[in-house]
């Protein structure tokens, strides 16, 4: 096993943990952090394969992912703060008003 394969393996494990975090945690903050974990796992894979193919593009992509993540965090946290003001809670299961 070479380092790239190992990092890719690590990336898939982290991604799965992130998925589970999104689906199992009930706090919006935790869900959000799990999403960041998933993004980070993807970044790891990008860098790992950039390393394998001796290409810079993977790293450039990571750069963009980070910029998008920053934008997402800004809006996401603003949303959480706004929701918390009215609901006094960050529990997403409390936000189930729109159901069939």
């Amino acid at each position, binding site marked *: 096993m070479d380092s790239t394969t190992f990092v890719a*393996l690590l990336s898939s494990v982290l991604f799965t943990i992130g998925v*589970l975090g999104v689906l199992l945690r009930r706090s919006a903050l935790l869900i959000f952090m799990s999403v960041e974990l998933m993004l*980070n796992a993807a970044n790891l894979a990008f*860098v790992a394969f950039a390393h394998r193919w001796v290409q810079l593009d993977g790293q450039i992509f990571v750069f*963009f992912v980070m910029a998008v993540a920053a*934008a997402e965090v800004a809006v996401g946290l603003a949303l959480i703060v706004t929701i918390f003001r009215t609901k006094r809670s960050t529990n997403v299961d409390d936000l189930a008003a729109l159901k069939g």
Partner: protein
Amino acid sequence: MTPDLPILIVLGAVSIASALGLLLSRNAIYAALFLVLNFGVGAVIYLVLNAPFIAVVQVSVYAGAIMVLFLFVIMLLGAERLSPGENPPGISFQRPLAIALGGVLLGLALYALFVRQPPTTATALADSSPTAIGLSLFGPYLFPFEVVSILLLVAMVGAVVLTRNR
């Protein structure tokens, strides 16, 4: 077997442990700190993989800005204590199904990684100096770069508008 592998295995173990900590912690502050640790380990992995620029950007953006913001919001809201995960009635299948699907996803990834045998690694090192990255960003990736800058601007305005006190 490459010389980096022992370091990577240690880092990987820490990384997975911190991710599990995030998944299982009962306190949002701890979760955030686990995530910071995870990001920090990620930065070191980037260094090992010959991506120093990405590594320091990871530290300054994720650890230095994003996670500080998370901590700030958690403390500001006083929302650190998380109630134990009790699913509301009606979606009791959520937990087992999610775990099963997550397992399937991981299995698929492992299958693709080990059974499908991707080509072997290259030995050369790419030039990943800030200069090379800058030339890429402002060369072939100029348009995505501009798009991302506009996205950031929009996100900034959005965040301000969302949290403004009326």
